[in-house]
């Protein structure tokens, strides 16, 4: 048994803690995300507002908790969709081979050629700003990443002796895929999903920050940070905490992915 990695533990705690906060936001948030208290505008951290308040007197902690909901919902949904589509295409290309694989992987190369944020911006330029477009944009970005990551290991598996043995004994391709190929890819899938979530969170927050993501009145951490710049000199607290929340969300998944990678691949 190898010694446990403290970073993996930190990552797991961060991810679970923040996911729990996102899920429980409506019950644990002290105020509604849009509840205004005009008399308590731009307050710093205090007993009534643990993380202070913004220029409308809205509670920063409550807005961050609801912001986590938006951030996690969009990032998780789009990365899982990308895993399904991209991972599926990658494994299909590996198992089938031939011209189909060439066409699929060339298409992936083309998508992969776009810088991440630019591809996301291009998708949003076509679909218009909003939460759904942001989700689709992030999904499109990660499809080629999953296809490329899973194709290599799936190719190796296809050539493996026990797969050949299964095939020789008359097991159907579907059964081989389900029984032998997919379970063996689970480690790589976990690592890549976790690392992708880490960057997808940053992409979502960047797009919101640029005004291309979730539109008002839905609470969004990136837009909170962008709006807080208008009163930054008067009160930096909203900027400090909303940015820190984005960092912690991304950091948790990255530590988790990094730790899992070490566990599955001791060489790294």
């Amino acid at each position: 048994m190898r010694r446990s990695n403290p970073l993996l533990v930190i990552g797991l705690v961060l991810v679970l803690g923040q996911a729990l906060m996102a899920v429980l936001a409506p019950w644990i948030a002290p105020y509604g995300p849009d509840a205004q208290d005009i008399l308590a505008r731009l307050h710093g951290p205090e007993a009534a507002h643990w993380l202070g308040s913004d220029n409308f007197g809205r509670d920063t902690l409550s807005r961050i908790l609801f912001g986590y909901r938006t951030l996690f919902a969009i990032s998780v949904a789009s990365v899982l969709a990308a895993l399904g589509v991209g991972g599926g295409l990658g494994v299909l290309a590996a198992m089938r081979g031939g011209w189909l694989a060439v066409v699929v992987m060339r298409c992936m190369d083309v998508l992969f050629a776009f810088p991440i944020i630019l591809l996301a911006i291009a998708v949003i330029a076509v679909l218009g700003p909003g939460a759904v477009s942001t989700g689709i944009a992030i999904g499109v970005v990660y499809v080629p990443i999953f296809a490329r990551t899973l194709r290599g290991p799936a190719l190796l598996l296809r050539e493996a002796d026990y797969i050949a043995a299964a095939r020789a004994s008359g097991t159907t391709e579907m059964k081989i895929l389900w029984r032998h190929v997919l379970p063996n890819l689970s480690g790589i899938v976990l690592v890549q999903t976790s690392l992708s979530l880490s960057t997808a969170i940053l992409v979502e927050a960047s797009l919101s920050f640029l005004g291309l993501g979730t539109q008002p009145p839905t609470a969004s951490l990136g837009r909170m940070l962008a709006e807080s710049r208008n009163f930054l000199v008067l009160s930096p607290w909203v900027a400090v905490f909303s940015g820190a929340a984005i960092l912690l969300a991304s950091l948790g998944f990255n530590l988790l992915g990094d730790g899992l990678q070490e566990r599955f691949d001791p060489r790294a």
Partner: protein
Amino acid sequence: MGHTGVLNALTRRLGELSVVAFGVSVLSFLMIRLIPGDAVQIMLGANAEVTPAQIAALRAKLGLDQPMVLQYGDWAWRALHGDLGTSVWTGRPVLEEILPRVGVTAELTLLSLAVAAVLAVPLGCLMATARRRSADYTIRLLSIVGLTLPSFWLGTMLLYGVAALAPDAQLLGWVPFGEDPLGNLQRIILPVIALALPVLASLSRVMRASMVEVMRQDYIRTARSKGLSEGSVVGVHALRNAVLPFMTSFGIMAGYLFGGSVVVEQVFALPGLGRLMLGAIAERNYPLVQASILLATLSFVVINALVDVLYAVVDPRISRA
């Protein structure tokens, strides 16, 4: 090793490059055609004075009244001759609007890459020499924090910090280097820090991994057993071999830098390509958006191909394979 090896690698890479470039151009071309609803209507906005004749004119100008394949051929032919379309609002060629902005983005991204690369080499070597487990974990935690630090947050915090300490500092906007070199550098420092830090974190991790790999090799043991000092083993023998894989990650970094500069330009009000593109999206000036994304992506593709080719030229093992 013969020249044929390098030549083969070059030809293969050129073939892949043209396939990808073709695909990128098709996707960029399709961008305007994929807009749900009528792109022309959207571009003209809710302008009640638009006559059907004007709509038909713009449609003809964009070539939207022809079959797709013809449209693409026509568009690609003109793009290859430097005509990337006209801006919907100003009526000027989009290239004329893009070119003056390239300098700002180029200065920001190149300076960031240079700063990050120069600092990453000693930092990565230092990280590679960490022997104790606790030190290793601390370094990893810090480098991952650096990786995940949102550049728009870092930029905002830097802006606030410097504004609080030195209220008179000129931080926002842009002056050309030729007009006012000091003013130019003063305004670019914070954006460069914000953009470079995640790159530094990423590059120093690559440098560390590369260094760790090299230090395991036999020739390092030989160098040590010859009685060379640790400094000269690391500095001369290991570094030279570790830097090569490190350099190849510059190409991937270019993609991050292009995207990151969109965000950082917005934070610091720098008039670069990123802000031009965001403004164009807000105005639904699609030809300008299309051309910016096409040019940025093609340069990213070319940079990556160049890095690969350089690597093949420098490292004979690659071209022989």
